[in-house]
């Protein structure tokens, strides 16, 4: 499944390129998170272990046991990662719903916000020097799709929630 390939690449890239993310997570790195894009038919399971982080897409009903769930439209979740939205504001407006271990969610939110992550860069980072060949067209596509959908598909792009 291409989605899981991208998810694996992202997890691997985070481990290699963002060690500070795991330091900032501290003991919360041992938790299991469900990232639930409510407008899609699947969820992401995230286990941010420093040595072997795991991110995998599964059917919502197959998520299994988790410590914390972060649910919201895909646009909100991606916009959070890219720093386009403020997490507290999304909770105030109910665009984001938290369940379970709030401390773990807060640590994850703060750790990700500090890393200034760009998902396009992260997915193609494992290609090494060839990444630039893939990221440039991917960025153009992301900008086009972002303009059409209002989703902040890259860092620095503004998003808009309906």
């Amino acid at each position, binding site marked *: 499944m291409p989605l899981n390939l991208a998810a694996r690449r992202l997890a691997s890239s985070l481990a290699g390129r963002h060690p500070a993310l795991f330091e900032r*997570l*501290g003991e919360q790195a041992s938790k299991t998170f469900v990232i639930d894009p409510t407008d899609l038919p699947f969820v992401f399971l995230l286990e941010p272990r420093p040595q072997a982080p795991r991110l995998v897409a599964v059917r919502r009903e197959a998520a299994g046991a988790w410590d914390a769930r972060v649910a919201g439209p895909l646009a909100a979740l991606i916009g959070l990662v890219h720093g386009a939205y403020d997490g507290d504001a999304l909770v105030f407006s*109910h665009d984001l*719903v938290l369940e379970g271990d*709030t401390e773990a969610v*807060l640590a994850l939110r*703060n750790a990700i916000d500090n890393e200034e992550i760009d998902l396009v860069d992260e997915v193609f980072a494992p290609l090494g020097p060839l990444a630039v060949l893939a990221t440039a067209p991917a960025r153009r596509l992301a900008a086009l799709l972002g303009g059409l959908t209002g989703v902040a598909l890259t860092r620095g792009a503004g998003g808009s929630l309906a």
Partner: protein
Amino acid sequence: MTSPGSLELVCPAGTPAAFRTAVEAGAHAVYCGFNDETNARNFPGLNFSRVEMADSIGFAHRHGAKVLIAVNTFPRAGAFELWTRAVDDAAGMQADAVILADLGLLDYAATTHPALRLHVSVQAAAANADAIAFYARNFGVRRVVLPRVLSVQEIAAINRDIDIETEVFIFGGLCVMAEGRCSLSSYATGKSPNMNGACSPASHVEYREEGGDLVSRIGGFAIHRVKAGQAAPYPTLCKGSFEAGEYRGHVFEDPVSLDAASLIPQLAAAGVTALKIEGRQRSRAYTQTVVRNFRRALDALAAGRPIPAGELRALTEGQRTTSGAYNKTWR
């Protein structure tokens, strides 16, 4: 009276990324804390290691911004060294000031680091000229952050009677209690901002969807039941909804945030030196938007133009704003 053009914009940062964002968005000064219980925003995943703090101070100074380090909780008996080390490290890193609340720590800082600029934290609740003069006389304090319980007229009266600078909150979350004296959180969680640096700590917060409503609990106590489409507040006891006699609702405080942008000219006329934005726990998206907005307002005032309308309500708790006690009408 302060010229509006010389007002200092003091901005929050909970992470190095938010710090850089604040500086690049136009902060004159950034306030932040170490990643332990010495500061009043001791939240998971937040704050600065020693290395990150030193790097951030270097970044700020290269960009002409100041750094104010908050060491503004009250030291626990038997653990004073954690707090003195924070002051020592701030001094060693060339911080532009430390923000302190505890008398013992103020005395330590004044004695040990006489060249270090000292600010009195809002946590000290110094709300009158005599109290502020005491801090200035005994510890050489240069600035006091005023608690959010004073009207503009009261701030002007204080400034007439003191010889040090005043800093006031201009935007962000509000606390109902005299600051530094609220222990409400500890009744439900055993932890308070004064001692542990965390009000209503996330470890004791639970959100759950029940029958279409979002229910939040703190320390096992349900404090909100919010329907879809209604704005949700922070899960703090002071913003909780309770029954008291015939009344059902926000007994202590409405979930609403401070936005006193329209009062900047009056605050300048009242002699205020610095305007502070609350929100070290917020993201860099919040930091960028709010700092940029207020820097634009100050630049407009300095140029003699009206303050441009900002739309910050979507970022605020309760999605509503107030000018708080600055426009006190209830006494």
